[in-house]
């Protein structure tokens, strides 16, 4: 009986391994507390390009990003999960993640933002890379703290070149393409936050 149950588990393994889709925090209570240590609670809302403005908005987003949206996670109806973080009734900021195609698999790029749109923290919830440790190191991720969408405005996400503070950040892994995919993910995240929340 026992080995049959385990066999069942085995045949279900692929489903279990692939159960998580979308870009939600894996453990919202723990993750929000880690990103905003002074927080007392959070509220979740679900946004999409389709509901917030449709095709016209998509064009605006693509223009701001400097690239076309493509693939499963960049259709208009993809739901984006936004966590509004509070200390009692005061808004401390937001946590927002996006899926981004990477060199060897999907990346999940999460940003903690203050109410004005400045990055308070950045981390990968998911990353498939030969240089995972370098990309996940605080020496790299902390360089994004304090930046906002304005710092990415002139950044060409296809080359990593530009004139802003974001363009000054160096690839921690030589020529690893995941650097450019990361920049695209962060810029996409900020552009979406701008159209959904900040509306600057």
């Amino acid at each position, binding site marked *: 009986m026992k080995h049959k149950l385990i066999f069942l588990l*085995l045949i279900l393994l*692929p489903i279990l*391994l692939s159960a998580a889709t979308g870009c939600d925090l894996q453990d919202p209570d723990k993750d929000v507390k880690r990103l905003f240590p002074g927080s007392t609670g959070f509220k979740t809302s679900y946004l999409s390009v389709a509901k917030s403005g449709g095709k016209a908005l998509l064009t605006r987003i693509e223009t701001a990003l400097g690239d076309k949206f493509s693939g499963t996670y960049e259709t208009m109806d993809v739901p984006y999960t936004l966590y509004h973080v509070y200390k009692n009734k005061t808004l401390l900021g937001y946590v927002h993640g996006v899926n981004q195609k990477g060199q060897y698999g999907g990346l999940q790029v999460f940003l903690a933002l203050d109410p004005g749109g400045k990055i308070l923290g950045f981390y990968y919830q998911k990353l498939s890379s030969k240089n995972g440790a370098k990309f996940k190191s605080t020496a790299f991720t902390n360089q994004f703290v304090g930046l906002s969408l304005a710092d990415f405005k002139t950044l060409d996400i296809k080359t990593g070149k530009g004139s802003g503070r974001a363009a000054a950040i160096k690839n921690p892994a030589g020529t690893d393409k995941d650097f450019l995919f990361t920049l695209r993910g962060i810029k996409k995240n900020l552009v979406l936050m701008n159209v959904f929340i900040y509306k600057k």
Partner: protein
Amino acid sequence: MPGISGIAYKNLRRKRLRSVLTVFGIALSTWVLVSLFGFNKGYEASLNKDIDNLGFQVLLTAKGCPYEAATLMLQGGKGLRYMPEGIVDSLKTNPEVDELTPMLMQTVFDVNKGEEGGVVGYLGIDPQTYPKMKTYLKFNQGNWFTQNDAMEAVMGYEAAELEQREVGDMILIPEKEIEVKIVGVLKRSGTQDDGTIFLPYKTVQQIFGLPGQLTSVGIKVNKSVDITAYEEELYKIPDVQVVSMAQVKNTISNLVSTARVMVMSIAIIAILIAMVGVINTILMSVLERYQEIGIMKSMGATTAHIFRLIWFETIMLCFAGGVIGSAMSAVLGKVTDSVIRYILPYAPTGSLVRIDLALVVRAIGIIVAIGLFSGIYPALRAARIRPIEAIRSADGEF
């Protein structure tokens, strides 16, 4: 002059709310009954489909392999058990075997998966034999591997979606730091294959340093073969264990049987409550019409007439409840499906509740039969009323 059915209908309409509540109670019982019958039928069919989709009826694994695999899955550690690849050639000589396919499963721990890392699984398959067994697998993009030992992968629909992979993209095998090219992405199949990353088993052997090793062999036996007898033969092979899909099916059925008994008990209780409700409603009705029934008898109605009248009222209530309940079960089929899925320890893919006309007719038949049975006592009590006593009495009284 109205017939018995007309009088029965008028009588029921006289106390509308009571009649409606009784019908509603019967309808709820019917809903449970139809859903239960539909579940028995749908679950069996869906489970059979899932088992058939595995493509083989018998799985041969290295002895102890599933235990080790479970450990590996849960803890991300240590090795699986293996069997020599040569076993495939010896099995091919068995006349019972129609087709067989070797498989080599490997899992690795990916430190970059989530905050604390996670396990990634790869299934090494034989591109010549595996697709023949899984005929339902169709490609969204690309095709199977170009060579038996190519550094290529085919991804199930959900695996590709999760990793945002397309044909031509690369994936990285963690720990080994080896790049593998995606040559195919499967269409959604609704099976466990949707979340699987397939590689040629020769490639898996090469990447993980396991030349000539397999973790399992899937065997499709000839249709005329007695599978149980063949399994006994397979048990004679040293250091392997046989997992029969029939056994797996039984195991799942056993897992589900507790839930099934629970639902059956609820259905029986619901039917009993409905029965008591029907008896109560009709008895109340008879009690209230004590004098009226007496007058009817004094005017020539026979005991049989009164019995039929009261019995007919019961049947009308049950029939109406049965029809409404059946309609509810059909309309709310998806809700029932979701509730059952939530309760069950394992639910196969596809519809769990299958309702058809024969099933509805059977359920209504059962409800009407219960009505006939429930109506006997009130009808007998009504039929035995003595006209003189009934007319003299101030209140309805037996």
